[in-house]
């Protein structure tokens, strides 16, 4: 759930039929197992493995509540999946460098090349 924004990402893991939906942040969460909150760019960088989740948790950039097993399983599944930003947005992978540049311009984004 991105901080201060009117929408949230609703993830439903279901084998190969899993889905991510964008929903209103004030919508009834229904039977949500767990919730992860933080700045949008932090959440996106966790989706594609660019940011270290434990570090974000230690530094309070994200808050988590609900089923900790589900949160940990999601974290490890995302890390194993090697998704790119293009995959997450449903775009061709060739567009990933362009997306990184756009997010870099948007600020608070650290491209891969910046890492030692």
């Amino acid at each position: 759930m991105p901080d201060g924004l009117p929408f949230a990402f609703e993830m439903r893991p279901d084998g190969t039929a899993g889905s991510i939906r964008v929903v209103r942040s004030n919508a009834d969460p229904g039977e949500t197992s767990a919730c992860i909150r933080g700045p949008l760019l932090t959440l996106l960088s966790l989706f594609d493995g660019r940011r270290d989740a434990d570090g974000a948790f230690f530094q309070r950039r994200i808050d988590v509540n609900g089923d900790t097993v589900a949160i940990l399983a999601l974290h490890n599944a995302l890390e194993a999946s090697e998704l790119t930003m293009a995959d997450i947005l449903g775009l061709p992978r060739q567009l990933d460098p362009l997306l990184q540049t756009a997010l870099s311009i948007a600020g608070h984004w650290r491209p891969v090349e910046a890492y030692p």
Partner: protein
Amino acid sequence: MLRAAIEAGADSVYCGFRDETNARNFPGLNFSPEELRVATDWAHERDARVLLALNTFARADATDVWRASADAAVAAGVDAVIAADLAVLSHLRANHPDTRLHLSVQAAAGTPEAIAFYAREYGVKRVVLPRVLSVEEIRSLTPEISVETEAFVYGGLCVMAEGRCALSSYASGRSPNLSGVCSPPEAVSFSDDHGERTTRLSGFAIDRLPAGQVGGYPTLCKGRFRGGGSDEPGYLFEDPVSLNAMSLLAGLATAGVTAVKIEGRQRGRAYVSRVTAAFRAAIDAIARGESPAPYESLLGDLAEGARETTGAYRKRWR
């Protein structure tokens, strides 16, 4: 993560099976036997080695699980098995005498006598040193032993003697040495009240962090409690902090350490890539006769509690 480590410059990667036979038994983590075989082939094609951690202690009523994992590791073609339990070491020695054995840090072997026992009885070729030794103690130890040494240089720290912590089992009924987890995720919960984060283990509140204050893992040893005559809660066992011994790499090398090890099998690609790349660069700099100083401050945001320490290596921590 194995690929990330090798691509970032690791010479070897240690990993575990997806069960209680390794000390990072978390959901969605680790390898099946077939995945390990594929990963080992991939690593070997790149001249990297795979070390399989089989480092929990076999339960009396389930030793078959550990035997099967040992056999599967050998079948996958790993370069060495890291073990601590005498039963596991004994099984490997008897049934797979050509398999290279490393003694896990969980065995807490830090004296010439203890290490000589494992070398003599089980043919152990390398010992992973307990994280309670100083550099000078390691320097004194290495001439006294006949096996290689491996030292942790980055990652989590435990306050207990290696392999002898049962603290979490008092709250959750599980412990790292028997179940492969301390603070199993099903026993952990977080709640948020106006930015204040309360951490619970099996329903016991073990920490309450005001908004914005950095924290650590949800373990009892990193919890805050009232005690010692103070009404203010504090870290009675250990502050949340990560080991970073990059500044001691040259000293560890001259002390006779064969290999250095980065902890973090439960961490993600960003952590693995950044920490491995930084240590690769530091080691290569030292090999060229240059200082590793430019790389020493690159990893602070990854540390538990956003703080780093040289731990017992400098003898201030005990």
